[in-house]
Structure formats: C-alpha cells, structure tokens
C-alpha cells in the first residue's frame, strides 16, 4: 500500500534514489536529534546533493501541523521543514506503520509525504547509496 496526500505527485516515486537518505526517528523539541538531522539534510542540499528524508518512529511527529516554538523561546524544527522545498528536498517518505500506531492520517500532516509499508522501506534504504539515521 502506498498513499500520498495528493499535493505533490513527485513524492510518490521511491524509484528515484537520491544521493543521500536521512532517516529521522526522533520527535521535535525533546532532543536535538531531529534538528541536527535536518541540518545535515539542508547543508547537503545546499552543497548540490540530492537528499531524501524518511520519517520513522517518533520522527513522524515532526510533521504535525500547528507546532510552535517551545519554552524559553526554544526554536522548533517546523521552520526547517518549511524550508525543505526551497532547498529542493522534495522526496519525503514516512513509515505507514509509524503513522498508524500514532493515529495520524497521512493527509493531516504539514507537508506532502509518501507513506510506505515495511517492505518498501527496506527497498528504499537499499536503493540509496548513503543513509544516515538520526
């Protein structure tokens, strides 16, 4: 099974391996993992590399609508996500099981993403020459 929010059909292709796949497994705010993973993605894109993102586990919470800055004005990661398109990072994948376990419909997210079942996640990782997990 494979569904998209329908906004960006380009993101449906998992047969479009990028130079680098960044896997984001951590929720926003609680730790700096998500921010630091996205920083690597944005820098790699700025250096002309093609970058894809996979949201897995609690990383899918990064895609919730309505996030804001945290206590003491701690920056969130949603502004980084809003910049992805500007950096031509358009291949966004998300674990279907991770969304389902958290009760999040794919079309409720802040960005158009392609949801992947497990076997397609394994294929996605195999098709990318470089993968970093955050």
């Amino acid at each position, binding site marked *: 099974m494979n569904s998209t929010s329908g906004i960006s059909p380009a993101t449906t292709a998992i047969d479009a391996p990028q130079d680098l796949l960044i896997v984001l497994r951590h929720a926003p705010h609680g*730790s700096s993992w998500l921010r630091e993973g996205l920083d690597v993605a944005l820098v790699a894109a700025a250096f002309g590399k093609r970058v894809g993102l996979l949201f897995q586990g609690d990383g899918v919470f990064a895609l919730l609508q309505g996030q804001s800055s*945290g*206590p*003491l004005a701690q920056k969130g990661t949603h502004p980084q996500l809003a910049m992805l398109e500007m950096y031509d990072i358009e291949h966004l994948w998300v674990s279907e099981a991770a969304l389902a376990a958290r009760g999040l419909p794919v079309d409720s997210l802040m960005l158009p993403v392609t949801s992947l079942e497990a076997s397609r996640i394994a294929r996605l990782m195999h098709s990318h020459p470089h993968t970093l997990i955050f």
Partner: protein
Amino acid sequence: MLVHAAPYSQQGALSALRFANAVVERGHRLSTVFFYHDGVHNASALMSPPQDEVQLADGWKRLHREGGTQLLVCIAAGLRRGLVDTGEAARHGLNSHSVEPPFELTGVGQLVDAMLENDRLITFAP
C-alpha cells in the same frame, strides 16, 4: 533541584530553568541547583549558541543573582567532561578553564546535604 540534562542536546535543561523561574515567581526559595551527569555542561562559560537561540547560562546566573540560588556542579562528573574552573585547570596543568562563578565545582556530598535540608527536590532528566 537536580539537573542531569545538557543544554541544547535535550529539553531537560530548558524545562528545569522554566520551572525554576515559575517556582521563584510563586515566592518560593530555590536554594540549590545541582548539575550532575551531562547537566554539568550547563555550567560551561564557553557555550556560544546563535544569538537568536535561548541563552541558558544567562538564566541560571539570573537565578543566582536575584534569589541567591547556589549553582553547584558535580566535580567528578564535571572533570571527566571538560568542566574545570581556574583552580582545577591549574591543578591539571591546563591553560584554559570553562567554569566561572557563580557556578561552583563541588562534591556529591553537597547534593546529599541539599536533598536532606530542603523541603522538595525535583529532578530534570535528559
């Protein structure tokens, strides 16, 4: 208050400072903050976060300045992690230091004392 969380890596340090401010605002006295585990990094005088981000160190110092809160850093946890004041730097032959007053390097015994002397202890974890 016991802080195990490092600034910028985990939210715990932010939560701790926010809670500390709320407690003081309520009129309570916050006698001691004890930094342990990776929380010792809160005492680093060398942190240089971007201007538009939270400056945690300023918040801790304000607690000390305005309410006399002791800012105690576990010396054993700190030395392993590169937190040294001028005295320890001299003793270890280092030509730089990273901890400055009002942060004080001290032993775990001070945590035990603070725990038994105060009404409440609250811990903020990584």
